[in-house]
């Protein structure tokens, strides 16, 4: 990729200071720091989907919010098309227009007191995309049809739609400013599976038609597998593995990626017992030293307990943050995913 990537983030981090009760503050106790995101880097080329997966609390949504400018990063850099937009105030209108977001819960992200027409027209007006009111109306109609609704639906209010239709409205709004990059934060997690399939198909169609780039945040590896070209696996605020989707599922490297792949309930697993992996995600307030995954890792040794592994390029397109992988201590990757019988 010689050309400038559409989105590039470098060593992005955000640390939240937790409130200290007054009594403890008086005793001089320092506030604890929650490192929600602690140094992640990636680049997304135009028209590509990068997915960030991980369990709740790993920081994946925070990454999306940092890129959207909803939080100010503690350190690191965000660039859109080579323009530094790390601080929200650096974002010109022209740059802001190019990046929009779709949230998990359309119920919460659509104003219940606005007609759908006004919800979708707002970005068009804010960015001065249409010449006049008539053109705005035409664009809104076009957007509604593009996401599979009828132009007449614009007169209704969000509560008159089902969950899937509301997510279509969110997508229409996200498209209204003619963005290049859409940050999708668990866009289908609140939907039933048959509706999820409709929305995922719609998102892929729109990507093909409009050349959109997606940053796709999800906890569901099966959905991620379906949607993305490249996948970053996140654990306690850091990426542990970044690889092309096919490679990640065929030959997962990091022990945490393997754990995730092994534990997903899958339709192909009928009648089989699985080895449940012990342990839970530790608190991000006091993460374990060294590699954050070492307490749950079957391959951890002294080095893993003391030295934090960095992402290193491994086989092919993959990058892995694991001492064991680097030293070749890991057993060969299990056969990718669950073999469907």
């Amino acid at each position, binding site marked *: 990729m010689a050309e400038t990537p559409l989105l590039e983030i470098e060593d992005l981090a955000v640390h939240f200071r937790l409130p200290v009760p007054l009594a403890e503050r008086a005793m001089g106790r320092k506030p604890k720091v929650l490192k929600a995101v602690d140094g992640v880097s990636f680049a997304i080329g135009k028209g590509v989907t990068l997915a960030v997966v991980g369990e709740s609390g790993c920081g994946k949504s925070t990454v999306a919010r940092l890129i959207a400018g909803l939080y100010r990063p503690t350190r690191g850099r965000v660039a859109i098309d080579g323009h530094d937009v790390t601080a929200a105030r650096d974002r010109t209108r022209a740059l802001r227009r190019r990046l929009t977001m779709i949230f998990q819960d359309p119920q919460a992200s659509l104003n219940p007191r606005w007609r759908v027409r006004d919800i979708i027209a707002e970005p068009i007006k804010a960015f001065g995309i249409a010449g006049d009111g008539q053109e705005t109306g035409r664009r809104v109609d076009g957007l509604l049809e593009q996401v599979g609704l009828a132009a007449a639906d614009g007169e209704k209010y969000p509560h008159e739609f089902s969950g899937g239709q509301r997510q279509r409205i969110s997508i229409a709004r996200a498209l209204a400013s003619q963005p290049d990059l859409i940050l999708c934060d668990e866009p289908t997690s609140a939907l039933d599976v048959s509706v999820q399939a409709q929305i995922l198909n719609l998102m892929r169609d729109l990507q093909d038609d409009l050349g959109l780039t997606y940053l796709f945040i999800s906890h569901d590896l099966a*959905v991620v597998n379906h949607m993305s070209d490249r996948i970053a696996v996140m654990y306690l605020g850091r990426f542990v593995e970044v690889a092309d989707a096919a490679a990640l599922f065929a030959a997962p490297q990091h022990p945490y990626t393997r754990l995730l792949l092994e534990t*997903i*309930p*899958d*339709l192909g697993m009928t009648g089989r017992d699985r080895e449940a992996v012990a342990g839970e995600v530790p608190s991000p307030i006091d993460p374990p030293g060294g590699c954050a995954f070492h307490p749950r890792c079957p391959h951890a040794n002294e080095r893993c307990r003391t030295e934090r592994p960095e992402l290193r390029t491994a086989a092919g397109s993959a990058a892995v943050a694991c001492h064991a992988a680097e030293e070749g201590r890991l057993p060969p990757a299990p056969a990718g995913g669950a073999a469907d019988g």
Partner: protein
Amino acid sequence: MADGAARPLLDVRGLKVGLPTRRGHLPILNGVDLHVKEGEVLGVVGESGAGKSITGLAVIGLLEPPARIDGGEVWFDGARIDGLSGDALRRIRGARIGVIFQDPLTSLNPLYTIGRQLTETIRTHMDLGADAAEKRAVELLDEVGIPAAASRLGAYPHEFSGGMRQRVVIALALCAHPRLIIADEPTTALDVSIQAQIIGVLKRLCREHGTAVMLITHDMGVIAETADRVAVMYAGRVIEDGTVAEVVRNASHPYSHGLMGSIPTIGERVGRLPQIRGAMPRVGAVPEGCAFAPRCPEVRDLCRAERPVMMGGKTTSAACWQYSPRWADSAGAAGAEAVADG
């Protein structure tokens, strides 16, 4: 599993639940038929609003008024339990039917220690002294995989993580050796790696104790791994019932077939997910005839006119006219009307 058993442990026949509202009576369940055999895990799946949780609640008599049972029968262990008084039901619930809900925080009392909640439940349902009850509580916590169980009796629910709390809830549900456990979305609130642990615990314990499970979930992956048999619900009815392998791989009903197809899997990558048009009808707006007819690719006039009952499908039972001798006679199909989906 227990194939020889003559009468199923739980037998629900034509269960109807309705909700009286100012604008008239809203039918929520329109005649649910399902059964759970001794020692069997029945998965009840369906999308939100299909009526799966309401079915579970109706069976154990925990429907929130004004919702009420309008008709049908619930048989448990050879006796009819719908219409029992609150007291009589309370003796069955907990002792003979254990219940696990989705959110462990709401099913545990935050003000009592785990030990107190366990011993209280044990002593309510079993004739045990305080010491024996405590010993049993430790055994139970041990069984569900809580490390250093004896030292955790004095802990409060907030001191446990989500996965550990759900283990405590499983221990509570199991404490009186129930014959049946009704688990409503037991792993939905948990992360995948924890979910696998909880499913493992539930599966192992029920196998060891011979407890039957009615597992209610929207997650087909969980069902595929856990259940012996599956009942698929749609718009307040069971529309397919068969072994888990057949329903997942070779479903008879067009809805189950579409549902299975629309789930992305890890194993294969497809260009587009097969999707079912439209959405499930809302409660109170279920069409005459087959409730799935407006979305069905196979629909014929017969489907719109008359509601199909369960009949033998390819390998499972399905409520679909395709498997009726009348299908061949019914007029050639007119395509489903266009539905704005969502």
